[in-house]
């Protein structure tokens, strides 16, 4: 095991994937000499050369469209979108081409494209640098959507995403890039759990807290805090947002009967809505209270000085836990 930051783990995952398969090529803005604005591709140009680590002109539709052409030719392109808010110019190529070409051709043309997106807020960034666009891709049939929350996951899932014959939108919580964790760099993919599985990070009995990405650590902190109050929370890291591993989720809900789903993205038609609708369909008779969402508000991402009033934090999670447990909470007032 090696201790790595999440950012370095991603870099190691890219390196390993490129060593494993010489059809893997990287495309993106500033990924070459600079190593990307987050340095995820640092050193890869030196090791693999400019034919495999391709700095592109500044145009996201162009990047993804070029990746599609490379996939037609049998390559396995890995695209870096510089920041979450810059994926929208590529939306048409992703939704109308990447997601649909396999279906359009009845499986004759494969699109093993991985689109990496440094993702979400909490870093005090300027506008368009803190977006959580995952629901757009979850709603798009033909794509798989992964969100990682720790170095070990990052290393493994990125390799799995690249090895997958399906297109994968791969979300990297940028505020965790410098967080460290143990990674087994020699782990073989063959032994790894499939890419689509959720993970129960902490077992509990009173309520299930479901989230993904950077909010996983907030959820774990909430579970710690709740424990002090005598509440036992189960924490699930979804990891795969499409498909969601509903078997694991449902097993937990059947046990606890109470659910909070949390994410940074805004609420309307977000991932939490999907998870709650599915949980309700599958586990209705087990539910003891209404599953609740703790999410960003339905507002554009606010200016940096105000982002803490937008992002769900420990207290908001705990308040929702109180609500699903019918304990006094912000809506009932302290003495309900």
């Amino acid at each position, binding site marked *: 095991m090696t201790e790595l930051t999440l950012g370095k783990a991603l870099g190691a995952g890219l390196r390993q994937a490129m060593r494993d398969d010489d059809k893997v090529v990287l495309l993106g803005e500033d990924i070459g000499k600079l190593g990307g604005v987050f340095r995820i591709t640092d050193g890869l140009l030196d090791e693999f050369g400019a034919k495999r680590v391709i700095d592109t002109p500044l145009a996201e539709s162009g990047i993804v*469209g070029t990746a599609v*052409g490379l996939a*037609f030719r049998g390559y396995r392109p890995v695209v870096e979108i510089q920041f979450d808010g810059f994926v929208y110019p590529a939306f048409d190529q992703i939704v109308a081409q990447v997601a649909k070409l396999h*279906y359009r051709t*009845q*499986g*004759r043309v494969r699109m093993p494209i991985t689109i990496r997106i440094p993702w979400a807020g909490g870093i005090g960034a300027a506008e368009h640098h803190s977006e959580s666009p995952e629901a757009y891709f979850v709603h798009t049939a033909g794509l798989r959507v992964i969100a990682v929350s720790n170095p070990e996951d990052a290393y493994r899932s990125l390799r799995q995403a690249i090895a997958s*014959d399906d297109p994968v939108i791969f979300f990297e919580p940028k505020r965790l890039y410098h967080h460290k964790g143990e990674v087994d760099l020699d782990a073989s993919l063959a032994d790894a759990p499939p890419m689509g599985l959720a993970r129960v990070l902490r077992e509990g009995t009173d309520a299930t807290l479901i989230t993904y990405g950077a909010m996983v650590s907030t959820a774990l902190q909430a579970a710690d805090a709740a424990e002090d109050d005598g509440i036992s929370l189960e924490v699930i890291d979804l990891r795969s947002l499409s498909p*969601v591993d509903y078997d694991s989720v449902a097993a937990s809900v059947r046990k606890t009967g109470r659910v909070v789903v949390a994410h940074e993205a805004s609420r309307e038609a977000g991932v939490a809505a999907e998870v709650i609708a599915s949980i309700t369909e599958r586990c209705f008779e087990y539910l003891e209270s209404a599953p609740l969402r703790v999410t960003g508000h339905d507002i554009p991402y606010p200016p940096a000085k105000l982002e803490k009033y937008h992002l769900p934090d420990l207290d908001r999670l705990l308040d929702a836990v109180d609500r699903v447990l019918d304990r006094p909470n912000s809506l009932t007032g302290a003495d309900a």
Partner: protein
Amino acid sequence: MSPQITPIADTAQDLELTERILGPDGIRIPNPQLDAYIDDVDAAQLRALHRDMVILRRIDAEGVALQRQGQLGLWAPCQGQEATQIGTARAIAPQDYVFPSYRETGVIYARGAAPGDYVRMWRGEEGAGHDPAALRVAPLQIIIGAQTLHAVGYALGIKHDGADEVAVTYFGDGATSQGDVNEAMIFASSYQAPVVFVCQNNHWAISEPVALQSQYPIAGRAPGFGIPSLRVDGNDVLACMAAMRWALAHARSGKGPAYIEAVTYRMGPHTTADDPTRYRDNAELEQWRRRDPITRLEAHLRAADELSDEQLAETQAAADDVAREMRAACLGMTTRPPLAVFDGVYAEPHTGLARQRDEYAAYLATFDGEV
């Protein structure tokens, strides 16, 4: 502020001239630029080009007829554009790969489409009418301009593989306004990718005249991106072939992308759903009818005594045969079963979709009296 500024280049360049080899009357015009590119084309080859165009026109007419008879949901006629499509596509080598738009019936014909390939998509049976690997042609693209970037990516792959291949992409005059088409020129130029851009300027993008997209010759844009271009008479099959040979040779020799604007005319409606009388003059149509690409080559061959009535009749019969096969293939198609809607969404197993499929299968089963 009186002085006359001379901007970097004069926008109203002398671009109205299109390259030509056959005049509208079928008489050959010397073309010092292009002649050498077709000096191997003898009468037999000219007859083959003629035959291709006649067959293509017949395929196109059959497509319209099948649509009118309710056998196809839609058809996008290419009548008038036969010289552009045949002239350029016949120059493409087997190992090259083509990224076309929805109107390139002539291109898939030249790449060896089977009779059913023309109609499978328009009939609504499948998303792509043909097997891309078999023809080395990507599925016909409906999203305007999207395929041009795919061609560039493919060409970048060719270059990195060191292969003796070229990627070719076709698109319309309207498509030149899309961001993607411009980005494609930029990426192609930046990577010096072996890709040939073929803009079929058929004067219309549905109801919009080409002047709305560009008041200047479209081919004039490419040089600004570092891509050499030619503007050819798109109703002159020889000029189209020669220009395409030039472009392919340019790309093949490692010099990067090349661009062709073929100036032609869409004689029919945009699609069978369109009514062009709402927006264009009959006079314009008549003018272009006199520039018909097939008549032009026929006049040339006839003048040289290289096309007999028997040969003409044989060609027409061959065209009818293709149309018959196409119709038979169309009428003989069977629709995939209901659960086929779930096929091919993903290349690998997918838990979410597997469950939806199971539930839908259970639902369908209720109609069998089964449970």
